[in-house]
């Protein structure tokens, strides 16, 4: 094990292009964009299916099919169709994060105790109020689980961006392999793993802040 690449201070200079902090920023950039687009697509669909119970087979099948798509293969296909750039990478990573977000949104909504929903209706809440004030807050713990799962996957997989000429921590892995610099490959692997743990801890913290105290432990 050779940690020299990881411990060299020159590789931690934020102002240098290709330095580790720089690559972490671009890596987090791809991750956040993929999570944002994934959530924009999957959350409304998942909530609708969960709230109405209509089309649940879509949620289940899209979840299963989406999980089995190889991201690198999809990325190469997108690059062939669209050319190089950020767009093919974002599409491939967004497809990766949709299944966990979609299925957890659906499952979270379905798991809300129907008696509570009935009680809310009985108190005169409108459907929109039932959704936003009762179902959504109660579904949050499960939905967060799916979101964290998706975030972990995308942090680990965003390394593929480097295969098509973009940045991110995959640069350390791919360039390191190309020039037989295993110290660099090791640095990339360690930083990706550490980043995945940190992102998950950060999301766990957010979860503690936004989930209603009344649901803790459930």
């Amino acid at each position, binding site marked *: 094990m050779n940690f020299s690449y990881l411990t060299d201070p020159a590789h931690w200079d934020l102002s240098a292009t290709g330095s580790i902090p720089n690559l972490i920023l671009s890596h987090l950039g791809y991750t956040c964009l993929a999570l944002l687009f994934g959530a924009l697509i999957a959350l409304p669909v998942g909530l609708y299916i969960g709230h109405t119970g209509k089309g649940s087979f879509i949620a289940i099948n899209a979840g299963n099919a989406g999980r089995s798509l190889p991201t690198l293969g999809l990325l190469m296909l997108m690059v062939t169709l669209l050319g*190089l750039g950020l767009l093919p990478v974002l599409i491939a990573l967004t497809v990766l994060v949709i299944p966990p977000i979609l299925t957890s949104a659906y499952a979270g909504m379905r798991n809300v105790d129907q008696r509570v929903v009935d009680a809310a209706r009985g108190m005169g809440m409108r459907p929109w109020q039932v959704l936003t004030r009762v179902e959504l807050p109660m579904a949050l713990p499960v939905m967060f689980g799916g979101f964290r799962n998706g975030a972990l996957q995308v942090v680990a997989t965003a390394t593929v961006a480097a295969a098509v*000429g973009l940045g991110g921590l995959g640069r350390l892995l791919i360039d390191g392999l190309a*020039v037989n610099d295993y110290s660099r490959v090791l640095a990339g692997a360690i930083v990706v793993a550490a980043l995945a743990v940190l992102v998950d801890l950060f999301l766990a913290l957010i979860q503690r802040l936004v989930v209603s105290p009344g649901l803790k432990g459930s």
Partner: protein
Amino acid sequence: MKRIVAAVAMALTLTACGANSDPLADEPAASGAAGGSVTVGSANFPESQLLAEIYSQALETKGVTVTRKFNIGAREVYLKALQDGSISLLPEYNGALLAALSPNGVPAGVSSPDAVLAELKKVLPAGTEVLEQSAAEDKDTLTVSAETATKNNLKTIEDLKAVAPTLIAGGGPEFTERQQGLKGLKEVYGVEFKEYKPLDPGGPLTVSALKDGDIQVANLFSTDSSIVTNKFVTLEDPKNLFTSQNVIPLIRTEANNANVTGALNAVSGKLTTENLTSYLAQVQVDKKDIAVVAKAFLSENGLS
């Protein structure tokens, strides 16, 4: 991550397979044929096998008894086989062979075909020699689309200097850090690109990026048939930044005689980068049998 680990594991397994299944296990049959007897080896990629087959057939037409031991592996493996006598002839590339035989790397300034050959002759393993080198080269190039070449009037890498700051280049990730890459381009030619996209070395991603205009300059290898197919223009390298990689026969002295030398030198005299590219494309693109393509090369060049 998982994928990269799997790829590494697979590569290791493959290497291990290559090491265990010894392609040199059975000894070459001794032969008393009048023209001599040669065991021809090759590296594990199609171009090397095609060249080895061309050598083999050229020798056979001169009455030499040929044993074929192709697809041996990487240079480390087949050079050992040559030195221990399990093979006696190999198609080689002068620059890459020189680099492999020079423990301290290729001396600075040695990159033209003649300089490389002269240097190579000093470091050859005992009991081996090289014959005449051909004009055919499989080396690093900077290649542009026909449109870019016409628009900017590009013929050589020197012409790039003025326009490079507006162009995006692409190729293998290792090109960014090698002397025979972006570093040398800056030092020798003063060429600095607007951006370099690390893609795949001489691979389909780089070719399609150049075709689609995502990059304007690509680091491709000179015998890549996609250069001809897509009418790309390979820029000349007048200052010899990229070490020459001429195809050259490397032979054990004991297997050589005037008949063998004559046959192999005649092949070297006919090989050019252009014809090697087109015959190689018959193997790689048209999926023709190597023996058939080698035969066509010899008959079309008056060597059979």
